[in-house]
């Protein structure tokens, strides 16, 4: 939008707010999304923790940390990712249905559009993750105020990055099928290789490097550090994880704005 010398777009907050609000209303009215995004990781976690976890011993893991506890931050990361996917997939339909065209033809800055959508999806993801966090007490995680606040902050950061990434992918997709393909090929490995379900230290060399290159790994590390900060369990390297996670969020959102701005001046068919 560098060509628009005269600023006649409406302020950024009203469009952002209204797009955010739309996400909330739509979510509440589509019950299946609640079940899909919230139920899946819960089932996942219970199966992983009680089934697989019993027959596995984590290499180098703290003796006091059960697999259920180890994978709990991973389950939260899953919730964040599933919700980010479910929320951003609607962009494909929005563009096809003409809803997004209507938004693009309005005097609204592209940043507002991206921000409204991303914040909406982030809110939903974090909201669900927070409820799930409360289940954590059943797994023996003590929720101090510090634990809670730190976890909240990290969840916002992860959700914001993933939603931006999802938006970025969805924006270029022509069909939801295409999105599913990318999800299976790209987003699922990103989740599995994030240390959510097994630590990098025990993985094969190639896997280890893949995990180290995966920005999600740092998000999960950070999340684990935040959740267990009250339990006296040390998670080394959290400052580095925080730096990588912040960088990831900034880069994703920047790429998103760049894509949305550029494409709106070209043919969208």
């Amino acid at each position, binding site marked *: *939008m560098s*060509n*628009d*010398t*005269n*600023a*006649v*777009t*409406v*302020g950024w907050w*009203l*469009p952002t*707010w*209204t797009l955010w*609000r*739309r996400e909330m*209303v*739509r979510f509440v*009215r*589509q019950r299946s999304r609640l079940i899909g995004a919230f139920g899946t990781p819960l089932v996942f976690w219970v199966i992983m923790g009680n089934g697989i976890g019993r027959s596995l011993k984590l290499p180098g893991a703290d003796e006091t940390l059960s697999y259920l506890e180890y994978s709990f931050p991973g389950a939260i990361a899953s919730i964040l990712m599933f919700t980010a996917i479910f929320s951003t997939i609607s962009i494909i339909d929005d563009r*096809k*249905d*003409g*809803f997004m*065209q*209507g*938004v*693009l*033809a*309005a*005097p*609204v800055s592209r940043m507002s559009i991206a921000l409204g959508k991303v914040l909406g999806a982030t809110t939903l993801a974090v909201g669900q993750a927070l409820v799930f966090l409360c289940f954590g007490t059943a797994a023996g995680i003590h929720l101090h105020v510090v634990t809670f606040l730190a976890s909240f902050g990290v969840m916002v950061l992860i959700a914001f990055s993933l939603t931006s990434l999802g938006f970025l992918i969805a924006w270029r997709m022509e069909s939801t099928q295409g999105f599913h393909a990318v999800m299976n090929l790209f987003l699922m490995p990103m989740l599995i290789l994030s240390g959510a379900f097994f630590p990098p230290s025990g993985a094969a060399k190639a896997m280890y490097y893949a995990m180290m290159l995966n920005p999600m790994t740092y998000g999960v590390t950070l999340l684990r550090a935040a959740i267990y900060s009250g339990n006296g369990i040390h998670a080394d390297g959290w400052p580095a994880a925080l730096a990588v996670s912040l960088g990831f969020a900034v880069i994703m959102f920047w790429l998103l704005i760049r894509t949305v701005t550029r494409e*709106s*001046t*070209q*043919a*969208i068919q």
Partner: protein
Amino acid sequence: MSDVVVVDGLRHQYGDRVALGGISFKVPTGEIFGLLGPNGGGKTTLFRILTTLLAPTGGTAAICDHDVVRERARVRTKLGVVFQSPSLDIHLRARENLRHSGHLYGLSGRDLEDRIEQSLARLRVLDRADDMVKTLSGGLRRRVEIAKCMLHRPALLILDEPSTGLDPGARLDLWRNLQELVQAEGTTILITTHFMDEAERCGRVAILNRGKLVVTGGPPELKSKLGGDCITIETDEAVTLRDAIEARFSCITMVVGDAVRIETPEASSMMSQIMESFGSRIRSMTIGKPTLEDVFMHHTGHRFDGDAS
């Protein structure tokens, strides 16, 4: 009155394919201007350029004296856009859709709520304001959508094939609403269509074919320019029959599919002469006042079948 839309030498290419080959036209305030053309003729490209969603590769277009590329943001405040695919969120109520759109145009509070009431009332859908859009019929959705686009009182309402998917009754209703908007609000309307009967309702029509503006004018004017009546002869040997008729009468003839069309001021006398001379080669012969379809065929040399070939 000044012109709301000024298009000058507008060109657009997708790679090597020329979608718009340099077109110019103007739309004065308060007019219903129709862009008539077969699918693939360049209507949608022109629509996307005028609504600031596509930058042209050449020429200029201005809405209310603001360039659609350089002053995109300003142009957007002047436009109400009805897309071919409905832009309403079906999971929201009609009123919520309007409120949402109002926010995008910087409207809020009491002022916005008042405008929503007025706009829905004007389109006669106020009684359905709190219904979910997904429960509304296609015709009602179109009305809600137009109400949505009128919230910020745009100088130009621009619609892309708005009758797509509407039954005849709903189409008639749509046109009544558009005409009321022009009368009551002085709105200028630009509408794209491939329906001849819709083009007939416009104040002026521009015929767009293969990226070129073929002709522009009021429908009665365009039709009367053809002069007299049109004879359509259906035959199995259109080309030889045309040659024979042209050799005998000096008149404008044209082969369209397996028919010969003749424009003539003396249709009835000519018909009997043709019947005498070539009767055995003719399947059927009809006479009629020129329609916009005849105007299209006259200027393009091919039949208007909704799809450009």
